[in-house]
């Protein structure tokens, strides 16, 4: 249902948009006769409804059309670029959990202290800086000036560090603050006092009992943020020349490569739906009091 709506939306919008993909492809130096012939070949001169019919028909068979720019199956182009973005997003999430959550826990435990303040300020700043700016600053600092890491491209773990950190920083900050507030809430609860009274070590109290319950809202937020992750990926991939679908999406929209844009949108819709389902499932596992809705 969602997929249908998304596909219809993107299809209509793209067709209404002024701008001729053929001319975009060829640039200034093209003869109008060439443009006309190409339009005919690609079926772009048929009425919109007919085009949509054909489009729907093809989707069912898994054919998302031919990318105007690459002249290959759009589905294939997207499929080839997808693993790179997944890798980037996963790494970004990784940073978020590795840096953000412990920072949040730490801040919560040292509440009011200097570290708490520092973590909070840093995460505020992390949430307030545009991704592309951050990315370029990182690139200049770590790659050009310090030569610790490569500036762009993909291939090795080293190449993954800067882009994923840039993409993930927003989530690191968000998660740090969220974890902190959830932990604070939970730390004061009765059942934790009971656990302490039972003589359990502090860290066991904190992690086993406290954290588990703090996870619920964390997981919710993480799920909601996945959509933002794709948006951020577009920018990050552009800055770091990372060959994923974000990069593809920008190029495709700039060149009015309809089929490719549609393919990317459908894909992101699918991903969103899947992640939402996963979150729901995770919910029931984490908090047995929540019924399946």
């Amino acid at each position, binding site marked *: *249902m*969602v997929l249908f*709506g*998304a596909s219809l*939306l*993107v299809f209509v*919008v*793209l067709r*209404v*948009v*002024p*701008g001729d993909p053929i001319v975009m492809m060829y640039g200034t130096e093209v003869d109008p006769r060439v443009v006309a012939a190409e339009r005919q070949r690609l079926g772009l001169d048929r009425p919109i409804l007919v085009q949509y019919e054909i489009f729907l028909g093809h989707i069912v068979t898994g054919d998302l059309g031919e990318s105007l720019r690459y002249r290959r199956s759009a589905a294939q182009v997207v499929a080839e670029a997808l693993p790179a973005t997944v890798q980037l997003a996963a790494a970004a999430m990784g940073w978020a959990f590795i840096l953000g959550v412990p920072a949040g826990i730490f801040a919560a435990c040292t509440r009011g202290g200097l570290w708490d303040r520092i973590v909070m300020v840093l995460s*505020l*700043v992390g*949430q*307030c*800086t*545009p*991704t*592309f*700016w951050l990315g*370029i*600053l990182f690139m*200049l600092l770590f790659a050009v000036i310090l030569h610790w890491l490569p500036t762009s491209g993909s291939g090795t773990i080293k190449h993954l560090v800067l882009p994923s950190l840039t993409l993930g920083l927003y989530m690191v900050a968000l998660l740090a603050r969220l974890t902190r*507030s*959830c932990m604070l*809430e939970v730390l004061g609860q009765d059942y934790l006092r009971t656990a302490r009274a039972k003589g359990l070590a502090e860290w066991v109290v904190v992690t086993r009992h406290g954290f588990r319950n703090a996870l619920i*809202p964390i997981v919710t937020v993480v799920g909601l943020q996945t*959509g933002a992750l*794709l*948006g951020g990926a*577009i*920018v990050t991939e*552009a800055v770091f020349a990372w060959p994923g679908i974000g990069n593809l*999406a*920008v190029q495709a*929209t700039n060149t009015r490569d309809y089929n490719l*844009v549609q393919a*990317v*949108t459908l894909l*992101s*819709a699918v991903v*969103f*739906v899947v992640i*939402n389902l996963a979150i729901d499932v995770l919910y029931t596992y984490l908090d047995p009091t929540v019924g399946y809705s």
Partner: protein
Amino acid sequence: MWARWEFGLAALLLFPVALMGLFATLAPYDPNWLDAAGRLTPPTMSLSGIGRHALGTDQLGRDVLSRMMYGTRISLTVGAFSVVVAGMLGLVLGLIAGYRGGWVDAVIMRVVDVVLSFPYILLAISIVAVLGASLRNIIIVFALSSWVVYARIVRGAVLALRNREYVLAARAMGCSSSRIVFRHVVPNIVSPLTVIASFELARIIVTEATLGFLGLGVPPPAASWGSMLADGRNYIQMTWWIGTFPGLALTATVLGINVFGDALRDALDPRLRHV
């Protein structure tokens, strides 16, 4: 409650920005005037320098300080209007969905899902391409992509309140739906909405910069911080002042708004922590 130190910090950050915006017309130069021969002059940054490109000129020869001051107005306008429009849209639709329930609720929630799954970049491109790039259309883009946040919260709150005793009592007494909504439901959701709105405002101002980076922001020659930042990205190394000053303004503003939102939330209702 209002004496929390966070409010002080927020005020400290936001006050100069607000001043800049209010008194933008007192800027030393016309923000769009091209001093073509004076491209990329460095900031002079002395008191006597105010009259002579205190913060330097950009790649087209325009005064950075003046553009930054006018940029305040643009960025804040985009943010404020987007939040207000999105908020109202989300409020109304959320109320309807939560209160009516049934198929109306289902339809609205499906629409919410579709919008959420649609990458906002594509939405931005489409709208900008169809309607043209302008301040008004950027606001439309933001409003259309962010109303869903409010709708969800409002709907959730309405669902929770629907079965409270006083609401059931009111209904039993024969109050009309709208009365119930306005007298009982709305006051309870103002708090979470305000908090959300403040965070959204901050997010939108930052996102405007990202759209500028992709070439989809407020169109030239408008001097939004976002487009200045985006323009300045190619000049970080040598003529750093083009992007850094608007960047500082942006960060200060967004930081201030976030701190304010945090403090507001803590002050109003600690239970909103998860919001």
